[in-house]
């Protein structure tokens, strides 16, 4: 997971793109050194001390990790659970749509 997301974030650093996490680790102190180790730079909401039972994942009915939602620049849900290359393609498509609209 991490290597793909790292490269996506790096590749699209100067594009109107953001990877937003909802982190479901219950122990932030254990997580912090791991984030440095894995070079996880993107911003995450914290799902709280209940971990995978936390309020954000409960509200969104998330039962599997990772769960992915991909939104366009208007905030509309366009894809769900696209991973790896498929995620790249989906994001590129939405960025292209956005560029076409601006033209």
């Amino acid at each position, binding site marked *: *997971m991490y290597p793909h*997301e790292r490269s*996506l974030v790096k590749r699209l650093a100067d*594009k*109107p*793109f*953001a*990877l*937003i*996490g*909802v*982190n*479901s*680790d219950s122990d*932030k102190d*254990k*997580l*912090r050194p*791991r*984030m440095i180790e*894995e070079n996880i730079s993107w*911003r*995450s*909401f*914290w*799902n709280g001390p*209940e*971990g*995978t*039972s936390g*309020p*954000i*994942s*409960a*509200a*969104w*009915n*998330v039962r599997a*990790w*990772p*769960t*992915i*939602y*991909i*939104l*366009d*620049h*208007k*905030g*509309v*849900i*366009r*894809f*769900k659970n696209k991973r790896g290359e498929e*995620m790249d393609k989906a*994001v590129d498509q*939405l*960025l292209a749509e*956005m560029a076409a609209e601006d033209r």
Partner: protein
Amino acid sequence: MKALYSSASALFLAAALVAQSGTESAKSEYDALVKEHATAVAEWRAAMDVVRKSEEYKAARAARDNEATRELTNSVARPDIDAFVARFAEAGKRYSGEEEALQFHLWIVMNGGAKQKDEILVAVNAVVADHLDSKALQPPQFRSNMLSRSIGQERYLEIVDLIVAKSPHDMVKAHALHGKAQGMMGRNASEEDKAKALVILDQVAELAKGDPLEVRARGPRFEAERLQIGMLAPDIVADDLDGVEFKLSDYRGKVVVIDFWGDW
């Protein structure tokens, strides 16, 4: 030798505690049994870890030799769940009719496996007969599919109805109904059952107002009605990992990947 010693000492402890009276001794007896079981499970896990790290095991895995890997993992004796269930059942019987019996019954319901079906049914029936008004009647496993598998779907649904009809506690009813609804939303559930489950979950959310269960109960309808492709994503307002509040909508104008992740 070690196992013999620990079970002998626990037996001694249990016997000594029975001599005391009332809730206190039942609680200590229960705690001691739970601890003994947890220790046995931990010892088993540690032994399994050793096996999994052994060269022999790695080689068998690499060779995709399922028989050899199974033989290696089976070489570690599992905790004797039959014996534990029997001891919890004995205590449940001894305190029968008293409030103290419930914890022993519930342990069997939660920890018994496919091989302890009979004991689970006895425990469930005791709960229904003597403890329907108890506030403690809400461990998550009492509402799971596992229970319907071990005592049969029909009996399970009867019990849910009984709890909903008889329990004076909203949270107990909420947990019972939540379990029923979850059982109706499985992978192969019909659209009709899923729709019915959403209605039950509305009830659960009302009963569980203010409890985390309320949020969980509202999740499936929220997903069905607000989180489908083509819909405007609902906002998320919460703290980041540094404790700084932000909003999903702060990122409007950008393509956004939301990733529910964890480091495990």
